[in-house]
């Protein structure tokens, strides 16, 4: 049973516009949320995170929003750039564990 879902397998956005990637989770005990970015033939790299005590965290062009009541996480990229084209994975961590549970990924393509 999938505890973390990314319902959009792909997203296409024009350069300069906003990209919004979404993630839903099932367990309200998850307390830390992350986004990873993965280019082909490379390992995932950490992008941004947020703890359950916050509802927003911003780092440059990247902002993560957390809606605990809806069990929903989103990543906003603005403005989007062609170099942002990659697969994005959301990940969650529960209390008392260091392991991460990943979503299925969303392939973002930013076109000129």
């Amino acid at each position: 049973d999938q505890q973390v879902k990314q319902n959009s397998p792909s997203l296409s956005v024009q350069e300069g516009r906003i990209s919004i990637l979404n993630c839903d989770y099932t367990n309200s005990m998850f307390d830390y949320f992350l986004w990873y970015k993965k280019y082909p033939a490379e390992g995932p790299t950490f992008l941004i995170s947020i703890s359950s005590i916050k509802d927003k965290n911003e780092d440059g062009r990247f902002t993560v929003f957390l809606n605990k009541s809806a069990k929903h996480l989103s990543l906003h990229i603005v403005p989007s750039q062609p170099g942002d084209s990659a697969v994005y994975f959301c990940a969650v961590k529960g209390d008392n564990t260091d392991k991460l549970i990943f979503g299925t990924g969303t392939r973002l393509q930013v076109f000129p």
Partner: protein
Amino acid sequence: DVKVTQSSRYLVKRTGEKVFLECVQDMDHENMFWYRQDPGLGLRLIYFSYDVKMKEKGDIPEGYSVSREKKERFSLILESASTNQTSMYLCASSSSPGELFFGEGSRLTVL
């Protein structure tokens, strides 16, 4: 700079062969993980380790075993490879809760 190194980027093995995937990290991290990535399924945790000689099963441990004899090294073993183990294997390490550092991955094809 953080470094997680996986010994083989690409491997081709035959059904029934024993396969070793090795991972080394140079950050003195306590935690190490093995995931596999498959299209449409995301990253799924196979095994993880919190310390030397300690291991815990992840979500899909069947058909795999692991070894952690030294803090910096975490090996994934496929005792008898099968075609459904064709996948991208990703090793990761962490010290603080949450942020994992990944290696570049090992793409295994089992014929």
